[in-house]
């Protein structure tokens, strides 16, 4: 499944990084602790978080994550979108909370 597929199914907003919408998703990781993601997320994972600052893109890029989903209607900081565009990391948004969104994504990726 690609990032663009889950955008449609989960009705996600695309804030930036649209160059990476055809990235393949290998799984997901839900965490707001950056070192936790750095240490444990896997290449191709979608990262679900409430963090909205530029370091999110740095980590997503270094770990080669498929995309980032910001939860609870959070808006990314203005300075991250250019970075996301350059790195081709889609920054997506959902109105839902981490629990609901993670559950839906889990079902999509494991069915």
């Amino acid at each position, binding site marked *: 499944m690609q990032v663009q597929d889950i955008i449609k199914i989960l009705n996600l907003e695309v804030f930036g990084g649209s160059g990476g919408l055809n990235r393949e998703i290998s799984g997901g990781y839900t965490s*707001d*602790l*950056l*070192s*936790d993601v*750095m*240490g444990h997320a896997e*290449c191709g994972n979608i990262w679900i*978080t409430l*963090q909205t*600052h*530029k*370091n999110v893109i*740095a*980590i997503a*890029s*270094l*770990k080669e994550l498929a995309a980032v989903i910001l939860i609870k209607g959070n808006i990314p900081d203005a*300075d991250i979108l250019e970075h996301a565009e350059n790195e081709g990391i889609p920054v997506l948004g959902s109105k839902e909370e981490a629990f609901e969104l993670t559950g839906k994504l889990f079902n999509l990726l494991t069915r």
Partner: protein
Amino acid sequence: MRFEYNIEAGNFSKAGDASSSFKKILKQLNVDPQIIKRIVVSLYEGEVNIVAHANGGKAICEVDTNLVRIHLVDVGPGIPDINKAMQAGYSTASARVREMGFGAGMGLQNIKNNADILNIQSEVGVGTELEIIVNLPKAG
């Protein structure tokens, strides 16, 4: 080959720049992607530690035929008790740093888990030096 990167104190928007640059170099050198991942995690955590805790520093990255050696050298408060700093969950990070999702006391553990060798030397009031070594498998 030797590459040197300056790391600014407190500038989180640049945290990860050294890791990103060095990652590109390692890719060009055809280093095994699994090993690049370990090096990048270690370097990134070291960078963030300098940004969050020190008054500035640098990362000196050396690529040899059989290993990558990273020296992270900072001018800063130093670590009074290295054993304590190595404990998972122990952190002296400020509230601001924690709100950003850093400062969870996982950084040094991440380095230890990804490096083949981690040496830490620190002097209170002077600074801290990390030596991180990741072995490269023999070609062929």
